[in-house]
């Protein structure tokens, strides 16, 4: 990459809506361990980041990268045992969530800090009506009567565009489609005006057209309520469409962070570059027929058997002896763009 190009990049304004906005959630050096037969593994290893009001922060990585464990750790929903938050702090609303008792966390969960999950079809209780499942959180957190809560639920269902909400309240999850259920999940999650919504692969189980609708809905709600959204995904396409900022995780560690524009234009970590290369693109040079997806060779190493030095080194085409011996630190490569790679400067930009 030439100097000219780099200068060009450094002048690019960072496209975060909320650069000056208040930080609502700050994760510092979070470590989460899991006990396995092969011993204790660190599923999340020293992850730090901040989430600002009104922004959509994407956390990207393959399965096993620790992105879901990070979100469950924030929510205090790590199954314990075998899981355990081994270190670090999670600041939200002026308190460290890792120090709170489960009872104290309960008050925050589902009210100011809420979460939706990957599988809408299994994420709602099959034997309870949608109405019951929508109102119980509302009654719990907002102290409403059954009737008030029902009206609030209807209002929320309207907001996520569910037709005939009064009628559908009486129905059960098996009577809804996956996309509708994810709308219900979002309605439940947004019903107590959360400051932060964590969405763990919210569209992975849905088909593509529904996917776009759900992402659009989340953006709309963000604009409407000013909530911050932490969007966990493995899909760079979803990141490009939806997020303001992106964090890339690999084998439990954060390896790159920056505004979506920056990271997509000039990734500073070969893994990110690989993820972008694995993205199907239309209108790329060459005919459709020879547009090959470049996949990253190999798989994420098991957490019980990590290579020394950089964890990505054995899959990385840029790797040198230094990479295999020394762990690269997270460094600011550009304003607001950090990455952990010894060879950041050698990376080619994706087309």
């Amino acid at each position: 990459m030439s100097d000219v190009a780099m200068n060009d990049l450094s002048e690019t304004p960072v496209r975060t809506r909320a650069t000056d906005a208040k930080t609502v959630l700050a994760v510092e050096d979070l470590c989460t361990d899991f006990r396995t037969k092969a011993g204790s593994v660190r599923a999340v290893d020293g992850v730090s980041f901040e989430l600002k009001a009104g922004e959509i922060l994407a956390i990207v990585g393959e399965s096993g990268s620790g992105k879901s464990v990070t979100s469950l750790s924030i929510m205090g929903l790590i199954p314990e045992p075998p899981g355990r938050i081994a270190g670090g702090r999670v600041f939200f609303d002026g308190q460290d969530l890792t120090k709170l008792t489960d009872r104290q966390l309960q008050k925050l969960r589902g009210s100011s800090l809420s979460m939706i999950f990957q599988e809408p079809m299994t994420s709602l209780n099959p034997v309870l009506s949608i109405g019951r499942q929508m109102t119980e959180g509302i009654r719990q957190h907002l102290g409403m009567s059954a009737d008030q809560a029902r009206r609030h639920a209807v209002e929320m269902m309207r907001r996520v565009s569910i037709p005939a909400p009064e009628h559908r309240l009486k129905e059960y999850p098996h009577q809804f489609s996956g996309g509708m259920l994810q709308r219900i999940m979002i309605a439940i999650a947004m019903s107590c005006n959360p400051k932060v919504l964590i969405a763990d692969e919210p569209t992975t189980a849905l088909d593509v057209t529904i996917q776009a609708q759900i992402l659009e809905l989340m953006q709309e709600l963000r604009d409407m309520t000013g909530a911050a959204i932490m969007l966990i995904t493995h899909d760079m396409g979803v990141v490009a469409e939806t997020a303001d900022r992106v964090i890339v995780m690999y084998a439990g560690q954060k390896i790159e962070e920056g505004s979506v524009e920056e990271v997509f234009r000039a990734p500073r970590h070969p893994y990110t570059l690989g993820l972008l290369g694995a993205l199907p693109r239309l209108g790329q040079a060459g005919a459709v027929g020879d547009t090959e997806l470049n996949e990253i060779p190999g798989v994420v190493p098991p957490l019980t058997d990590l290579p020394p030095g950089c964890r990505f080194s054995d899959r990385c085409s840029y790797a040198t002896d230094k990479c295999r011996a020394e762990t690269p630190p997270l460094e600011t490569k550009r304003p607001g763009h950090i990455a952990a790679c010894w060879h950041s400067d050698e990376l080619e930009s994706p087309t």
Partner: protein
Amino acid sequence: MDRYLLQRSLAALLTIWITTIAVSMLIHLVPGDPVQIMYAQSQGTTPEELEEVRQRLGLNEPLVVQYVQYMGRVLQGNLGTTIRGEQPVLELLLERLPNTLALAGAALLIACVIGLVSGFIAAYKRGSWLDTSLMTTAILGVSMPHFWLGLILLFFFAVRLQWFPVAGNGIENLVLPAVTLGVTNAAIIARLTRSSMIDVFDQDFIRTARAKGLPKAMVLYGHALRAGLVPIVTMIGLQFTYMMGGAIVVENVFGWNGVGRMAIQAIFQRDYPLIQGFILMFACIVVTVSLLMDVIYAWLDPRIRY
């Protein structure tokens, strides 16, 4: 819902109808001449008298005619009269039935309370010493034959400690037989409850319920137990029918005056009308209970209802 219930009811009627065929043919399943066997114990019956009994029971008619006659009587509520004493069978059965139902009901209550509670605790504390000891006890309970447990309980609590009477038909006499019948079934229910609840605790919707910030009690009882009960209720329905069978044994061990005890006596005395009536009545009870369980099942699981 209505269609589902209609289907279940028709299936229940079909079961009872098949039972009536089996019951009416029962007498012919005995090797040899049933009338001779019936009267073998009584001295001095002449061949003429035997022939008269055959005539009275309609045993000389073709099987189809016998069945039609039998059904005709049954539909009018006439289950015949006993060989010994010539008492109406239906009356005898109905007189004793409340005792058996009381025994089975009390046993079911004991089984459900012990089984559900210990199974739920074991699932919640999965992998702990409490879980291990509860489930070990449950295996002991499952493997224990009714008659043996009954005798042990009688020996310790009635003979040695004299807390309960050995035999009789008061409410205090109900305790030991109900416990005997209840604990073995409690063990089965406990094991099923445990596995069902463990399955439910791992479900995504439990995580959702927790993510909503619901209090633990609401997650456990409002969400987990409610969903876990579906297979358990079906199982309890089956358990009750086994329990009715077990009641026959237990009634005899404790001298409890239920229909089971009467049935055993009838079998020893080869009193066919009484045995037939007993089997038919038992079948009706079992089928009714199953139907009831289907209704509860549908009420618990909306996926069945719609």
